[in-house]
């Protein structure tokens, strides 16, 4: 049977959907805005280099370089002495009699 006066469809579900999408968009925008601000302020990001601590790092790098030069110099001097021993030993071994006896 054909309805002469069909019922009007409710627009409420559509309204809810629109509200939900809007809420999601607002949340994303809020999240992005908040995160950007945090990064810029350096509050949340502990690894951010501040102008105040940059010279400290440079100073530390310099100290490390100086220590490393000193350590390498020491190692090099030790190697030099050990090398002298190696060369002396080679000479001493070669001077030893290594010929079979006449038997």
């Amino acid at each position, binding site marked *: 049977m054909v309805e002469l006066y069909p019922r009007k469809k409710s627009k409420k579900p559509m309204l809810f959907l629109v509200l939900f999408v809007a809420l999601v968009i607002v949340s994303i925008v809020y999240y992005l805005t908040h995160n950007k601000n945090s990064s810029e302020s350096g509050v949340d990001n502990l690894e951010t280099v501040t102008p105040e601590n940059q010279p400290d790092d440079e100073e530390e790098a310099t100290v490390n370089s100086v220590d490393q030069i000193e350590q390498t110099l020491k190692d090099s001097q030790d190697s030099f002495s050990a090398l002298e021993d*190696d060369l002396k030993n080679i000479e001493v071994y070669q001077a030893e009699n290594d010929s079979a006896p006449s*038997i």
Partner: protein
Amino acid sequence: MLKNNPTKIINFVSVFFLVFLIPVSVYAEEDMAEAERQAAEKNATSSGSAALIDISTLSADQAIAEYNQSGTGDRKIEALKQAAKKYVESRLATLEALKSAIEAANIESAKKNVLSVEVQNRVSAINLLREEIQNQNEIDQIKSRIRLIFSENKIYSIFAPKIRGEIAVARLSSIAGKIEDLKPKINSLLLEKKNAGVDTTSGQSALSGIENQLKTINDSLRIANDRFSAITLTNATAAKIYISDGREALIKAKNALGEINKYLAVINNL
């Protein structure tokens, strides 16, 4: 005359003993002593003046001399075994010293392992010969094994110089790598000091000197490494040339390292 007179009989017997038997026994003792002396003299003449010396106290050379002079087979064998024992002992002591040198060297552990295995193989080979000699009682067999201690191992003339050379190459290679790694850091340090107003001319010159000497070290290291690793115990003539060439290259590298130490000290004092 003596019949019926016991006292006279006793007197007669006593006089007989005194006059005849005592001198005879004295002469007999002297004869025995003379015979013993002559026997000892004969023995000493046949086995040399060291015949009475305990062979186990002799050095290798003394034991060989004893072997050459000994008359009896047993003493000859004993002398040969003593000489072999001394040859083995001195070589094992050298190999132990090499082991300690490898262990103490500031080189890569992989290289340490390779060298330690080489030394251990020599120790095993010499110990095997020692055991064979001590269990052998044929003079010719003992002699041939004594010759092998020298001909197959060549501890002094080839093996020990080769191992020492390889330790030196590894040591130099390690320190050259450290100095190479240090170059950029020296550069940054000099730049920083220059920016801070320090005169870095001597430092720049030292850095340039380090670079030149490093090149000398690396070139010499290549030669030394080629020569020492090419040494084999089977070709003694070539081995001697390689040892000589390798040693010469090491001396050159050592001198370059000495120069680098002076340059590093300059930079260190800036």
